[in-house]
């Protein structure tokens, strides 16, 4: 694909029912009312020179380059700040305008590096292009006057530089930081000639900047520019693809030079991100070529042996033969596999297909087990579909936003910026979270209510809010009568109205004043469109599924489902968590969430796959590990998941893997799970393959191959090879053929084709005959299951209780710069922000224990203990501590326990009873890890013979 140049229309698109017709350079143009003259001209193909304007920023009118003449009016107004009017006659070119523009550019150029003036070249800056457009030649003022050419460059950020010498103080970066990102880290310091862009009078790296790249994207002069662009130079081709980090699913333009990535730019036409990005997707792609990548298949007989590099043929042949041997010896159900939420839909579909059809068992699961499986269960039970109800743009119409157990500015930053725009416009905000997350108080946003509940009491909270709705007559009776199962509703109404569910009664559990809960419930129920956004703080509890149903109950009771601006919206953790669930990765259901015991569905798959399929549910991940320890589960294929680091109770996970005779890991790196593996199959990054990811709003975005697979095979090709070697032939030559099969077998994907995705850019399922271009908002006019089903959501306190031995509650989570187990981000410069996990602890709890900021502390639970530095933080409430699990050496999941959601076994990561004490050395587990990790990751430099290989 040639280098993509996106058109900048100068000012944002306006939406209006009223159209205005005017004349630009003699051409009649009709645009929505409110459109700027600059944009109207651009939409008609007349590109007026500009520097301070950009179509993702409100007009500013500072550069004066976009001047135009309007018949009957005096002067030369800036076209960016002048709205269209009916009958206007606008002239964008005239000798007078040309002279004015040239004069302006001359002034700019007189204080600009001379080597940056010639242009335009391919990929030249906007400044160079404008210089050429106005015919800039000799600078009448010379270059010897007062200037900024000796100003110091700021290279403190690992990914971009700021060179004031090239800055024209157009304020695009400042406005992008405010309007697009919502961080307000930049400003213009000084006045007149002394005006400079400033990150708060300190280097960027020490400022409030979150490195989202919006300022770099906005800069027209390369004063702010990517370091990779400076190092590698102009790219020669581009590929539009989908980010492989969080569940927002941003579209990016990968700019390449030969097969090397020069930079990743957010794609303006991306429906999920609208041209915005975060530090991970924008900059943290260096892992793709990191020296730790394993590019050759490897095998070994014992996990204490060094790895031996082998050919793909030998690795695949050995793996297939071992799986067959183990099944022959221990039975068909003694093996299974795990698909990845980081891989594509097509790859995930193939993994579960291979397990069901080639292994002949339903022992397939996916990493969604440990994050959003309760979302699937809860929303399917109540509404009929295991997915969020809205598209991201729906938030533009929300009047009340309730965030529960999510920290969007860290975990879903691009959507957080979108949400913040709506909040700055006046939407009200309720935050339900034990921690004081950034959104509680951030520039120009102050939550109306922060309900800092005790971890593990979500259901008590949602029941209390629902009680207020019922008790105070705030139910949308008409909606409920028309849309919901009235009998189930009455049953629920009687339950929720009981005094024991009142905010006053629940205060003892939640710790949140009843008056606040009542006021927040009234706000949610009465201020127009109310939308719930939630994260793992909802799902990763023993009552995760109950809580999801509780939120659906509340939304149904108040009529907040089935239209724009409302909904129950999971913020998915990994890039393809939604997709991995959609694709039938769970042991009990085929793609499209249809149970394996459904004869008609199973027959459909049996006919397509030409094999009999099992009708009983298979083992979930924790069940596989339990069964391994029991001796009945012996071999596993794990594609792109690191269960040793990410799953709870690390020592239990390790023991389960160690008990197996064959562990096959397919990944980019020798991850922690690979320490227990006998076969390592190299994986491919999102830049190395074709496919699709499905984001949190059910949007399928194309993943396009930008560079060839570094190890020679895309992940789906590895699964195909393994399946063929197992004796179950697969014949796909491209990922699109796998999608064709998915569409054929899955009603909600029936209308999905690569051709359609190419044409529309992306599509949201359901996409079928009823909705050929997809479904942005679900349950419009009726719920997928027919009548919405209210469920009884009794609050059951977790069995994980604090005791005198473990008096604190640990809750775990994520931060902005690192992603999940850190396999990718730890291999980038993002480590500059977070090079180790720390324990956040409230000053009260710290002082009681004699802990000072930075002290090494022991974090112990009944499952295990680790040592890590303490960070004293008032974000925590007394009695609650917090850490992340991004670094393997920390071993945060050594501490978490086996307790899990009652319906789905999603681990209770958010509630672990712990003790924290000052420490002087690493924990026993950490010492053992340090000693054994090196041994288990050795790669033999010589060919060695492995018995039986």
């Amino acid at each position, binding site marked *: 694909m040639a280098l993509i140049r996106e058109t900048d229309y100068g000012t944002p698109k306006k939406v209006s029912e009223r159209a205005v017709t005017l004349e630009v350079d003699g051409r009649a143009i009709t645009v929505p009312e409110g459109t700027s003259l600059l944009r109207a001209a651009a939409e008609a193909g007349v590109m007026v020179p500009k520097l301070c304007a950009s179509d993702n920023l409100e007009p500013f009118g500072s550069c004066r380059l976009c001047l135009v003449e309007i018949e009957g009016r005096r002067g030369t107004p800036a076209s960016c700040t002048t709205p269209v009017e009916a009958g206007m006659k606008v002239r964008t070119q005239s000798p007078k305008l040309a002279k004015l523009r040239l004069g302006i550019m001359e002034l700019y150029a007189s204080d600009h590096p001379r080597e940056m003036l010639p242009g335009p070249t391919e990929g030249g800056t906007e400044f160079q292009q404008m210089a050429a457009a106005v015919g800039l030649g000799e600078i009448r003022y010379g270059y010897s006057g007062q200037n900024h050419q000796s100003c110091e460059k700021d290279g403190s950020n690992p990914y971009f530089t700021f060179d004031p010498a090239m800055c024209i103080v157009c304020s695009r970066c400042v406005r992008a930081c405010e309007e697009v990102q919502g961080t307000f880290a930049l400003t213009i310091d000084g006045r007149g000639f002394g005006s400079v862009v400033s990150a708060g009078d300190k280097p960027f790296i020490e400022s409030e900047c979150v490195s989202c790249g919006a300022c770099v994207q906005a800069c027209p002069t390369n004063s702010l520019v990517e370091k990779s662009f400076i190092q590698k130079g102009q790219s020669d081709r581009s590929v539009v693809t989908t980010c492989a980090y969080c569940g927002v699913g941003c579209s990016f333009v990968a700019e390449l030079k030969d097969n090397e990535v020069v930079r990743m730019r957010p794609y303006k036409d991306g429906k999920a991100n609208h041209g915005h990005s975060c530090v991970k997707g924008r900059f943290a792609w260096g892992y793709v070529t990191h020296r730790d990548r394993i590019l050759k298949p490897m095998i070994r007989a014992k996990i204490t042996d060094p790895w031996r590099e082998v050919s793909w043929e030998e690795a695949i042949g050995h793996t297939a033969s071992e799986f067959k041997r183990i099944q022959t010896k221990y039975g068909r159900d003694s093996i299974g596999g795990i698909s990845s939420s980081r891989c594509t839909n097509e790859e995930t579909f193939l993994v579960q297909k291979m397990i069901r059809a080639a292994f002949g068992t339903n022992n397939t699961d996916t990493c969604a087990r440990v994050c959003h499986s309760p979302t699937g269960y809860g929303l399917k039970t109540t509404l009929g579909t295991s997915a969020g109800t809205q598209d991201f743009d729906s938030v533009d119409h929300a009047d009340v936003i309730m965030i529960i157990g999510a920290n969007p500015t860290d975990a879903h930053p691009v959507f957080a910026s979108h949400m913040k725009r709506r909040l700055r416009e006046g939407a009200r905000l309720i935050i339900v979270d034990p921690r004081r997350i950034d959104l509680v108080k951030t520039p120009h946003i102050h939550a109306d209510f922060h309900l800092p509940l005790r971890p593990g009491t979500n259901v008590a909270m949602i029941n209390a809010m629902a009680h207020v709705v019922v008790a105070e007559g705030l139910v949308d009776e008409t909606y409920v009568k028309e849309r919901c199962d009235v009998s189930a509703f009455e049953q629920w109404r009687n339950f929720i109205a009981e005094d024991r569910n009142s905010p006053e009664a629940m205060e003892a559990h939640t710790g949140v004043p009843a008056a606040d809960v009542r006021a927040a419930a009234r706000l949610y129920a009465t201020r127009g469109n109310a939308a719930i956004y939630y994260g793992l703080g909802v799902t990763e509890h*023993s009552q995760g599924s109950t809580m999801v149903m509780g939120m659906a109950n509340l939304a149904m009771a108040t009529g907040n489902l089935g239209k724009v601006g409302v909904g129950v919206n999971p913020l998915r953790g990994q890039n393809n968590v939604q997709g991995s669930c959609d694709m039938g990765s769970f042991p009990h259901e085929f793609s499209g969430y249809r149970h394996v015991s459904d004869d008609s569905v199973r027959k459909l798959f049996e006919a397509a796959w030409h094999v009999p399929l099992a009708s009983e549910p298979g083992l979930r991940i924790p069940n596989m590990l339990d069964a391994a320890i029991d001796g009945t589960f012996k071999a596993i294929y794990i594609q792109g998941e690191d269960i040793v680091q990410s799953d709870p109770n690390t020592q239990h996970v390790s023991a389960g893997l160690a008990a197996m005779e064959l562990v096959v890991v397919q990944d980019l790196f020798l991850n922690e799970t690979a320490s227990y593996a006998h076969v390592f199959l190299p994986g491919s990054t999102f830049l190395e393959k074709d496919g699709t990811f499905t984001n949190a709003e059910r949007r399928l975005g194309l993943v396009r191959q930008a560079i060839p697979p570094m190890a020679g095979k895309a992940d789906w090709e590895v699964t195909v090879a393994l399946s063929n070697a197992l004796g179950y032939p697969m014949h796909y030559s491209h990922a699109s053929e796998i999608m064709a099969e998915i569409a054929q077998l899955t009603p909600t994907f029936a209308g999905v084709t690569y051709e359609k995705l190419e044409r529309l850019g992306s599509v949201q399922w359901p996409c079928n005959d009823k909705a050929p271009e997809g479904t942005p908002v679900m349950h419009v006019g009726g719920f997928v299951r027919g009548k919405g089903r209210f469920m009884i959501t*009794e609050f059951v306190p977790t069995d994980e209780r604090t005791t005198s031995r473990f008096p604190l509650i640990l809750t775990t989570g994520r931060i902005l710069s690192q992603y999940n187990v850190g396999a990718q981000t730890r291999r980038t410069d993002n480590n500059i922000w977070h090079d180790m996990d720390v324990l956040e602890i409230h000053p009260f709890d710290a002082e009681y224990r004699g802990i000072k900021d930075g002290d090494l502390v022991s974090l112990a639970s009944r499952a295990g203990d680790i040592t890590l530095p303490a960070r004293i933080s008032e974000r925590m409430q007394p009695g609650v501590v917090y850490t992340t699990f991004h670094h393997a050496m920390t071993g945060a999941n050594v501490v978490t326990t086996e307790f899990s959601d009652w319906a789905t076994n999603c681990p209770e990561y958010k509630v672990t009873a712990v003790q924290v004490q000052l420490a002087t050395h690493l924990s026993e587990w950490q010492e053992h890890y340090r000693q054994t990790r090196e041994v288990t990751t050795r790669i033999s430099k010589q060919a060695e013979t492995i018995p039986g290989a």
Partner: protein
Amino acid sequence: MVHMANQIALFFAGYPREEAVGGVTDHLKKYWEPRMRKQIIEYVAGGGAGLHELAVEAVKRLP
């Protein structure tokens, strides 16, 4: 396993008894792999110590 079964029982305990027992049985059938169901059936046959009575009744109804 006893803990998991009890958690399931506690969720359905809010429903009328017959509906609750049916809910637990249905959940075990839909989501528990056969060897897990076999274990819990054997456990109940052995007395089912520590199991919620709804879980005991539901397990008895498993095929």
